[in-house]
């Protein structure tokens, strides 16, 4: 792998940028691999990278039905944080955040990881109780977290409407300063380039059409580019987990929904953090290019259409204009949808499946991007050793049978 730097840019400028090598190869599939990862999104590519980099397993293929990074990796709103309520979640996401913190250098790819802070707003007493609980839990888990008063919220993000003249006034917020954003495409490309350099074959336009199972053990996959044998196969196909599971003969506690997002036209810097509100349900940040990046809730019906309805966006724009009134004259430039697969407890499934040698990593719902490095790291460990790492052991499929859910909706109930 030729190193990227200002010097390589200058050197290549002299040759009119005509000597840059490919960032990754486009090889034809070999007949067999030690490990096949289905899905060349961020999580799949990260899994392949860590298999090669940490476990010495380089005879790996990553199969992608479209183009690498073209699913949810390239469609999300890029929020990164680790301020989760439950110990299991906090441990996994914090591990991921720590990996993010050195990832650009490790991959020699500028991921534009930007720790500009994630501010979660508080709108009522119930939010405040939940926020206090979460901030205290985060700090005991050594995850940075602060509870802000309304005045502190105003100081941190002056464009928020912190007056009482709003339907759901802002009563405060929680802040994770280490949270922020990254350039989503670069994450896929950076992992792809680094994995490719270690010998991993990334095979695009290669859709898996069947999973071969003999005597309860996986033996390979059928694809649009022919059959490929493998000792171990990982399903890392956010949105389509159920489809792949069905090929192997089992069902998952997962449903797929469109999740819409949108960006505004590029603006000069106006918002220097990530704002999230569960109370009025919207989140917004500003990309390095200047676009406001906005997301909100799912469209309820199950769908693989990558299309949502405008009503969902209308709702979230009402919320945005309410929170930040100066955005009313800003314009939506592009909207799109990804397909997210959602577990009943809003936590992912990472680990073994009923089929030996077949592993799954899915069900991340709306929050998978932030977990990309950690998710790949634990799945690589699980596939290399055939044992879950303590970080992902609680996220096994069998929690739905035992009842040991990791319910991240937990604090969302409203009553009295």
């Amino acid at each position, binding site marked *: 792998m030729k190193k*990227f*730097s*200002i010097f390589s840019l200058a050197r290549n*400028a002299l040759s*009119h*940028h005509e000597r*840059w*090598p*490919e*960032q990754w190869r*486009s090889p034809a599939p070999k007949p067999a691999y030690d490990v096949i990862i289905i899905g060349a999104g961020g999580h799949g590519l990260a899994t392949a990278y860590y298999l090669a980099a940490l476990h010495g397993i380089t005879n790996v293929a990553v199969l992608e039905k479209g*183009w*690498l990074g*073209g699913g949810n990796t390239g469609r999300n709103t890029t929020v990164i944080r680790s301020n989760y309520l439950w*110990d299991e979640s906090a441990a996994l996401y914090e591990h991921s955040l720590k990996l993010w913190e050195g990832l*650009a*250098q490790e991959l020699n*790819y500028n991921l534009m990881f930007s720790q500009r802070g994630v501010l979660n707003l508080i709108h009522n007493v119930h939010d405040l*109780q939940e926020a*206090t*609980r979460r901030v205290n839990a985060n*700090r*005991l888990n*050594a995850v940075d977290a602060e509870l802000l008063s309304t005045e502190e919220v105003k100081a941190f993000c002056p464009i928020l409407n912190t007056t009482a003249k*709003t*339907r*759901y006034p802002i009563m405060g917020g929680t802040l994770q300063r280490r949270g922020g954003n990254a350039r989503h*495409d670069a994450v896929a490309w*950076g992992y792809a380039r680094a994995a490719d350099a270690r010998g991993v074959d990334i095979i695009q336009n290669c859709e898996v059409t069947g999973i071969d199972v003999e005597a309860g053990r996986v033996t390979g996959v059928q694809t649009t580019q022919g059959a490929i044998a493998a000792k171990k196969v990982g399903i890392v196909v956010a949105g389509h987990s159920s489809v792949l599971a069905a090929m192997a003969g089992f069902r998952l506690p997962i449903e797929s929904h469109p999740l819409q997002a949108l960006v*505004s*036209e*590029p*603006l*000069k*810097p106006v918002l220097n953090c990530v704002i999230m509100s569960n109370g009025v349900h919207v989140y917004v940040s500003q990309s*390095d*290019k200047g676009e406001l990046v906005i997301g909100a809730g799912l469209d309820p019906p199950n769908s693989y259409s990558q299309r949502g309805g*405008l009503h969902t*966006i209308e709702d979230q724009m009402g919320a*945005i*204009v*309410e929170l930040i009134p*100066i955005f*009313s*004259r*800003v*314009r*939506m430039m592009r*909207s*799109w949808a990804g397909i997210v697969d959602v577990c009943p407890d809003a936590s992912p499934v990472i680990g073994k499946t009923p089929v030996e040698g077949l592993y799954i990593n899915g069900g991340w719902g709306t929050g998978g991007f932030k977990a990309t490095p950690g998710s790949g790291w634990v799945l690589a460990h699980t596939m290399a050793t055939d044992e879950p790492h303590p970080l992902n052991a609680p996220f096994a499929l069998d*929690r739905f049978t*035992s*009842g040991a*859910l990791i*319910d991240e909706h*937990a604090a969302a*109930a*409203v*009553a*009295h």
Partner: protein
Amino acid sequence: MRFRLKEGGRIDRAQRLRFTFNGRRYEGFAGDTLASALIANGTHLTSRSFKYHRPRGILTAGAEEPSALVQLGEGARTEPNLRATQVELYDGLTAAGVNAWPSANCDFAAWTGRLAPLFPAGFYYKTFLWPASFWKFVYEPTIRRMAGLGRAPEAPDPDSYDKRHVHCDVLVVGGGPAGIAAALAAGEAGARVLLVDEEATLGGALLGQRHKVDGVDGAAWAQAAAGRLAAMEEVRVLSRTTLFGYYDHNSLSAFERRTDHLGPGTPAGMSRQRLWNIKAGRVVLATGAHERPLVFADNDRPGIMLASAAQRYLNHYAALPGERAVLFTNNDAAYEAAHDIVEAGGTVGAVVDCRHEPAAPLAPKLEEAGVALHTGSVIAATHGTKRVRSVTVAKLGEGGGLSGEQYRIFCDSVLVSGGWNPAVHLFSQSAGKLAFEEARGIFLPGKATQALEAVGAANGSFGLASCLAEGAAAGARAAEAAGFGDGTPPPTPPVEAPEPGAITPFWLAPGQKPLGHGKAKHMVDHQDDVTAADIRLAAREGFRSVEHVKRYTTVGMGTDQGKTANVNGLAILADALGKTVPEVGFTTYRPPYTPVTFGALAGRDTGPLMDPVRRTAMHEWHEAEGAVFEPVGQWLRPWWYPRPGEDKHAAVARECRAVREAAGILDASTLGKIDIKGPDATTLLDMVYTNAFSTLKVGRVRYGLMCGDDGMVFDDGTTARLGENHYLMTTTTGNAAHVLEWLEEWLQTEWPELRVYCTSVTEQWATVALAGPRARDVLAAVAPEMALDTDSFPFMSVKEGIVAGVDARVFRISFTGELSFEINVPWQHGRRLWEALMEAGAAHGITPYGTEAMHVLRAERGFIIVGQETDGTTTPHDLGMDWIVSKKKSDFLGKRAWSREDSRREDRKQLVGILTDDPKKVLPEGTQLVETRGQPPIPMIGHVTSSYESPTLGRSIALALVRSGRARKGETIYAAPESGFLPCKVTEPVFYDPEGAKRDG
């Protein structure tokens, strides 16, 4: 207005308008756009490009404009990134080009252009990596300052927005000839038609041309047609309205600009913009086509514009593009622009046609007029900085390079035409598949998946006659599908217009140096400064999918979403990869077609209308008493009632004491109330509650817990048996709608054999909780006929009777631990009841109390609040409420789940009481609990769910969920970390009257 023709065009020369652009004053006419007025004044430089800050001018005359972006207006009404080509001029308009400081003319950041060799596509992925700490504090802040285009306003928007929802049989999108013909045909057949057009007047492409329809000027024909449409009762025409989104099931959305063209002349109170949500029977897409630029060296200098744009400025706005123009084309149709300029008295220096043997019908006429014709030639270079001053023309050689002599041609405008791209954006949004036609190098609508038809230029039919014919046919067919007419199209008028003629797709003109060498830029995306060399670099680096190339180079990612750039970029990529265009693929178009303000999308759903506000019948009384309100769901509930000089703490303490010592009165109307009737009502309740209701006697009340089939508590409340088959259930305030749906769902989907009706009566009954040792005395005064003694009216029973002169239901239930009556009267009598009780209670020290005091009182007594003591992971056993779980019932919702491994764990979190060692310390709700002091990470054993200063006990109290909590009673644990590892004792979760001695007064 040096470049304004003396006559012609459709501007109103009688109305002069003054405006300021980039700090200079100008004049224009009514009917101008900002772009046409600038051109009429000879100004082409408008703004700076995104990356290299290159001078940018006006490329187009419409919605596809990538380059002439302006910041319109100032102050709270300023708006960023508007296309000068679409801003209608009004008197006093001020605007400035974006991304330039101090001005587009003299831009400080133009140095970035000189460093361009270091900034190829994706350069930022390859650098700014060292030292790592510089990213946050140096590199990224610099990048962010350099990025972005316009500025957001700094003050809230003073304008209002609204929405309309409409149905139509036929929606016609686009008011050009095809759209007009479609609307006329469908309208005449009698269908309900909606015609949506983004411009101020109908006509579309006719407005830029001198073609005749029905013997008259095309624009005049369009105006006449508009008049005919306006006279049809079922036809509505929306001008200045952009159909921007095509969603599922023929749902479409449009964005109408109602006042933007009026400027300061806007009538007060008129909404600025309107969102139209449309449900269409059938859709006719007559969205026209966008002319595509040619890609050649330094093709982005101000003064270089699309041939059709020059034609539009000339014919519609009577503005010449400059003193001397050069046309660069690959097709016959563009000759018309040069011809129109010559006809209007302008000068065309040369026509450069990349085709070796073009046979454009207008070529001889132009040569007659003295225009030099360079065939088989390209523009190899352009010159001039803030305005094109000349071009270098050279012959195309074999193998794609230049050959022979190069000519310098002086000019101040260059008209370019690379052919036309059908505007297939909405078709693609509708989930229709596109098809590529090699001959003309265009994407066409393929198979439709919704009830729609694309016609005219949007369908690749560029001739005027065929536009009219296709439009009329589609309009008639769409009307017939809705049951109007027989589908026969009306005859279309005769036209005088040339046929579109021949075209040879041509994607990349060679420059004087190899691509990417030297300073020349072959601009593909004018906004984001994406060059042909950038696209080749991406291909070289392994980015082979069009989606990758878009994302790596940002081609097509600007505010215009690549309307002029995408197809050229795709073809250049295909060429670089040695593939055909369809092999490289095509991106799917996403809404919106052009940008839509957040304000219009939000409409009126902001402020108080963002979410309905629900108020009780006694709300105004609470307000008059100065109550502080707590939002609970959509409701506003009195939180506490401060008296003069009281803070929250003092008010709550006083309210609590009143309830414990005398009488308090609480507005409990917001609790959900569900009337349940039917022969199987008891069976239903036995299934949805953990305890049994079949044993409840008529006239009695029982508290119940509801669980999901996952075993977790999700609601609680009391249910009264009013008759053998008649119950009144209460729910928590926030869950009322959910519980009703829960019951209905089970009844309709799982137990349809049960004969039960459930009706929400929350807003039929106003509810007052009267609590305290004097409650009976107070009630007796207003309900003299009701027997209130404990024997006649025991705890957990219900009575009907007259209270305060009104029919009432009175429940003897208590959420405070004190003697308590919950009195329900019809909603409209709520205030009367409240005031009667206040009056009768005056002698007994009656005190209104709010939700905060209610919380304190119930916590003292150890009563839970669902959503506070529970969080969706809590079972009845966790709450220590085994007493409410039936051991006899064989089945009810939730039961099965408790035998799962995790539910059986001994070390689950259990509800306990917590007393801080320091009685003055009140723990914040949400505080975590740990076994030892120390440095994080520290394992947590639970958290505080409720915590108050208890006036009754004179100390702080708290409830908490703690791992194996019941076994820890008496243990010391610590509240952490914000509370500083404060020691506390684990206790019973009941702090007051554990025997329940107070409930009877």
